[in-house]
């Protein structure tokens, strides 16, 4: 009973606030507004369409429930015999078209902005593998594999006997997160090595498929430092549910320091010297 009332309380709290959920929360009802300008636009678009659907739904269902309450045989209703009304039919064809145009305009604007990966200040290459991600900071030698955190990996086994609810960020935590700078337009080039995966962090406002043989592009610019969690979104085999994504956004200076440290810690420089380092894909 107490659990139920806490649950209801959390549900009400979730309803009452549309606070920025960077990461999924219990009883979360709505999409996260996210941490970027794009994700805010997507959230607003989502709320606009949702609102329009609610209004149309109220009108249509309202008319239906009114009919069902009013025009019942048991209440002595007598059926009319008409079966067409040209004016009404024209109205309910034209008005929806206008509403759709109204929805398409902001959607088109947002899509065009999200598709524009130009002017990026840095590029990160993401490669999906069964069942982990590789991140490469293009223009540097820093690259690493990011996979499910060890405690979760042990706990998730069938019959592990571990209470998974006790594990913090269960299935949403990795051994090595992707570190990125805030206030920087970052271009991602996304591909896969074996099967199709999809790289998705809800707080960034998009997901992009990672496809073998293809290089897809996307971009983000995170304004607030923070930890943003996501998961692979395209079925990729038995451990599809166990390849999370963690992005940590740090202030630019901190990021630069981290990157330099990673670069310095690279064990063998000669290994990379054999293959020419990829040209930095920054502002051209």
């Amino acid at each position: 009973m107490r659990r139920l009332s806490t649950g209801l309380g959390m549900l009400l709290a979730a309803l009452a606030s549309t606070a920025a959920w960077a990461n999924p929360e219990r009883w979360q009802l709505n999409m996260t507004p996210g941490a970027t300008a794009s994700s805010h636009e997507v959230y607003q678009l989502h709320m606009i369409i949702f609102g329009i659907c609610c209004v149309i739904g109220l009108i249509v269902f309202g008319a239906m429930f009114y009919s069902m309450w009013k025009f019942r045989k048991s209440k002595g209703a007598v059926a009319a015999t008409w079966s067409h009304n040209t004016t009404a039919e024209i109205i309910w064809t034209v008005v929806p078209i206008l509403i759709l145009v109204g929805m398409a305009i902001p959607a088109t604007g947002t899509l065009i902005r999200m598709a524009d990966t130009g002017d990026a200040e840095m590029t990160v290459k993401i490669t999906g593998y069964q069942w982990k991600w590789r991140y490469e900071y293009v223009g540097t030698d820093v690259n690493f594999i990011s996979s499910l955190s060890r405690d979760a990996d042990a706990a998730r086994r069938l019959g592990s006997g571990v209470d998974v609810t006790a594990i913090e960020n269960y299935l949403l935590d990795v051994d090595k997160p992707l570190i990125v700078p805030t206030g920087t337009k970052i271009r991602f080039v996304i591909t896969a090595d074996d099967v199709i995966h999809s790289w998705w962090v809800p707080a960034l406002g998009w997901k992009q498929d990672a496809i073998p043989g293809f290089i897809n592009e996307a971009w983000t610019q995170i304004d607030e430092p923070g930890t943003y969690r996501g998961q692979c979104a395209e079925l990729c085999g038995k451990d599809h549910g166990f390849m999370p994504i963690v992005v940590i956004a740090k202030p630019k200076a901190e990021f630069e320091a981290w990157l330099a440290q990673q670069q310095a810690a690279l064990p063998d420089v000669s290994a990379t010297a054999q293959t020419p380092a990829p040209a930095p894909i920054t502002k051209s």
Partner: protein
Amino acid sequence: MAEHATHDTHDEHHDDHQQSFFMRWFCSTNHKDIGTLYLLFSLVMFFIGGFMALVIRAELFVPGLQLVHPEFFNQMTTMHALVMIFGAVMPAFVGLANWMIPMMVGAPDMALPRMNNWSFWILPFAFTMLLLPLIQYAFFGVGAGGPAGGWTLYPPLSLQGGNNVAFTIFAIHMMGVSSIMGAINVIATILNMRAPGMDLLKMPVFCWTWLITAFLLIAVMPVLAGAVTMLLTDKFFLTSFFNAAGGGDPVMFQHIFWFFGHPEVYIMILPAFGIVSEIIPTFARKPLFGYQAMVYATASIAFLSFIVWAHHMFTVGMPLGGELFFMYATMLIAVPTGVKVFNWVSTMWKSSMTFETPMLFAVGFVILFTIGGFSGLMLAIVPADFQYHDTYFVVAHFHYVLVTGAIYSIMAATYYWLPKWTGVMYNEALGKWHFWLSTIFVNVLFFPQHFLGLAGMPRRIPDYNVAFADFNLISSIGAFGFGLAQLIFAWIVIQCAFLGRGAKATDHVWEGSKGLEWTLSSPPPHHSFSTPPVINDKDLAHGDVTH
């Protein structure tokens, strides 16, 4: 006088063949017997697919893996979809078409009765083949199990399966052959076997929606066959249609698949529109609003279904122009679909309604299908789809249109025509229980999945973060409630069809029923109309034939 012409020449006994059980049920060329076989097959598949869904929901009841390995979980999601789509929904509609189209257009039988037998009898073999790897694995521990790459069979993942790839692909080929033959039969029957005076634009809407559906089937089933054949040769004959390393293109498979897949979605919903357009006027005692608009809207939806396929693929990295085109085209579907919903509501307006079980399911269909339509419209908006895609929001969306859409219409049709088929009234109280329990639990089951998807839970995962625990728990409770409620349905059908229990049904069955099928006896004679009936415009289901 035409008004006085009745069809009482159809004596229930004069053509009641005395056939052995084997001859009647295995060698039948009779549209009603084959229709019955289709419907029973579909019911069995509905419970098999439903059982798989309950395995999924049981595993997702709480976080952590408790019951099945992830690989088996993936087999369950894959097989649940294949069994429900190809085994439950499509055969059920073909069964209804078999039973009803000859009776509705005033024909003695389907145009091609032997092919009709064949197209049904392929199905049990196709599904045995589809299910065999799973059965071997689950019950005998042999092999690696069924396909686990999702019902969409996306390569390269689907090609990582073992021999089950071949089983699945040949099963799909056989289902395709069956569907195409069924579709040819429907078209041949409707175009050639209508009674004199039954003009195309006087046909019941159910016949219209099935005619259009049949053309969709013929257009797209070969496309699916081509796509899966290329998968087969990629897997076993070292071709590289979809293998990037060999110069192939994994995204091309998705384009071909969804060129089939999107019309397939309408194959599963257009006949449902037809059924609801028959039932609502009957229980509203008022002609269907905008008959011709309904027909044209159906045709428009069918046309649009061919140019929207890539909205299933907004995240594969299409060029901007492609994304915009598919977004606009997809949004357009809302217009004819909206026309249909408005027409149903207008049919109810100023009518005189009663709410027997078929009407309850039809009204439930309109409301809940429309909710699925709204989420569909939201999914069409590309930037928003970047968030919704491949999440539980999508799962909620297509279950609203398929369970409370397609399946609800099949149940509505069953209650509506069961007295006609069996000559026995079903148990109305049990029918109402079935409706209310189903409707409550189906919403408990699928509505929270919208929240899960928006909060960030991907689909097709066997385990999840504790943040998703609460709504998954609720959803699973709904699933078991909905599953159990379907046992009532099975019992009602058994009572009528096998035990013959219940009040004797009149020929007319419903007070407001109109159309040729109600002029026949309940149950109807072996050959529906051995002499063409006389068509009176005012007796047609939709009343006013001029609009």
